[in-house]
């Protein structure tokens, strides 16, 4: 596809007899938001892990700007992980340092890429706390004292501070109250537009996918059973499984 940052082809991965990924192909273009939906156990998290180089597939290739992600060394992959890429975990505890202040959490990626001016690091941390609507007065507090929604917003600030080009998100609103989810989704949508971010987001939530995504990929038992522009897939689902997903949301 044209303008693709990330492309993957022929991805296969089995856990014993369980097919977690079967012949999966995917592309993410610059500035594009792609949602991966599907029932529990369909392989969504596995796909994110394989695409972000954290787990090797049994077969297939993942390319970032044409470069084979699984063939590059660990040093290069880690560099990618803290520069061009970001990863937002479902559980903020997996993506934050709980014993480090909010400001330190946001500053870590800056320092990891060589920032050595305390005043600048702090100014950027403040700027990002404001962007994710965390009160500046909380900059020196530990994330442990934050609500779940605040922790998740802090994780987003910490990930976006180095302006990555592609962000992987695994159910970033899972486990939050519905009202908090809506606010967080608005925030993600606003920031991805403002920064021209590419986002690959896993979600159970069809409504969230409709709000955020340019394109949708529907997974079932390790396979991509349908993909296309969000409106097309949700308004005119072709695969029986997608039809079921969409109708179950409408019924709810």
């Amino acid at each position, binding site marked *: 596809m044209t303008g693709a940052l990330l492309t993957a082809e022929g991805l296969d991965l089995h856990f014993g007899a369980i097919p977690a990924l079967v012949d999966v192909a995917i592309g993410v273009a610059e500035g594009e938001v792609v949602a991966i939906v599907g029932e529990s156990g369909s392989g969504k998290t596995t796909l994110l892990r394989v695409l972000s180089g954290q787990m090797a597939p049994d077969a297939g290739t993942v390319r970032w700007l044409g470069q084979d992600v699984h063939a590059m060394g*660990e*040093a290069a992959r*880690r560099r990618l992980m*803290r520069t061009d890429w970001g990863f937002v975990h479902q559980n903020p505890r997996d993506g934050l*340092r709980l014993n*480090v*202040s909010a*400001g*330190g959490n946001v*500053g*870590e*990626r800056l*320092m*990891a*890429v060589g920032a*050595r*001016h*305390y*005043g600048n*690091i*702090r100014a950027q941390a403040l700027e990002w706390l404001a962007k994710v609507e965390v009160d500046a007065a909380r*900059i*020196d507090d530990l994330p442990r004292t934050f609500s779940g929604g605040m922790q998740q917003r802090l994780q987003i600030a910490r990930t976006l501070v180095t302006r990555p080009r592609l962000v992987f998100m695994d159910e970033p609103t899972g486990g939050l109250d519905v009202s908090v989810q809506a606010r967080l989704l608005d925030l993600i949508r606003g920031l991805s537009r403002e920064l021209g971010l590419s986002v690959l987001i896993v979600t159970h939530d069809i409504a969230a996918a409709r709000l955020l995504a340019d394109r949708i990929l529907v997974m079932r038992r390790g396979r991509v059973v349908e993909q296309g522009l969000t409106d097309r897939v949700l308004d005119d689902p072709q695969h029986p499984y997608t039809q079921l997903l969409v109708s179950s949301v409408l019924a709810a």
Partner: protein
Amino acid sequence: MNAPLAGYNFAYLDEATKRMLRRTILKAVAVPGHQIPFGAREMPLPYGWGTGGIQVTAAILGPADTLKVIDQGADDTTNAISIRRFFTRVAGVATTERTEEATIIQTRHRIPEAALREDQILVYQVPQPEPLSKLEPRRAETKRLHALADYGLMHVRLYEDIARLGHIAKAYDYPVMVNGRYLMSPSPIPAFDNPKMHRMAALQLFGAGREKRIYAIPPYTEVRSLDFEDHPFRPIRAPQACALCGSRESYLDEVITDDRGGRVFVCSDTDYCGTRVAAQKGVA
């Protein structure tokens, strides 16, 4: 030279062990600041008494060497005396309290005030060789961070200090970058001593007995204390002059003089202080 105690190999360790240690030391010198694991031997002293430093000293000691041992800057503490006595007994080497006479100086907590020379070796006793241990307890992960020179985490720690206290709180064991590549723990010396490590003419060897690691700084290697551009590293000493020799440059210890709270500041390096006092008396 005294005759070494019968029944021991020279310097206590057997020759195979010394060769193993020397190979480790050579590797350590070849990759400045990088921790090299070694097969530590049981020493006739408990960990915490400097078994790592003692093994390094035993491996490099020759009959013609003159050994100085300091603990907290002083030659006359129990620890320093027992290590000196140990090498007198098992190697029969000469010992000294004078920095300039020593060819090998084993140390805990201090670097001598007098500039060291190319013909001297400084051996540090190290309790915890891993500068990232408090931030990342998993050994496999710290190894990976060193391999990738991924040291952002250490700066996060310094950031936290400044955010909470307005300055970097670490007064001892202040982390350094060696040769622009490896993050290294200088052992629990005061941050005041860190600048002495930079381009030191003497070879510096570090032995950690419990953790079974050796690392090194070859002569004239760049050693930089971590800091921020707007919060530069500053070696700190008490603002007083030494009550005995009057020095305003040396690192001072606070000494309680009576039970009514009286106290004075004196040089922690007893040889440095004594030499200055003697010179002043000579002149007077």
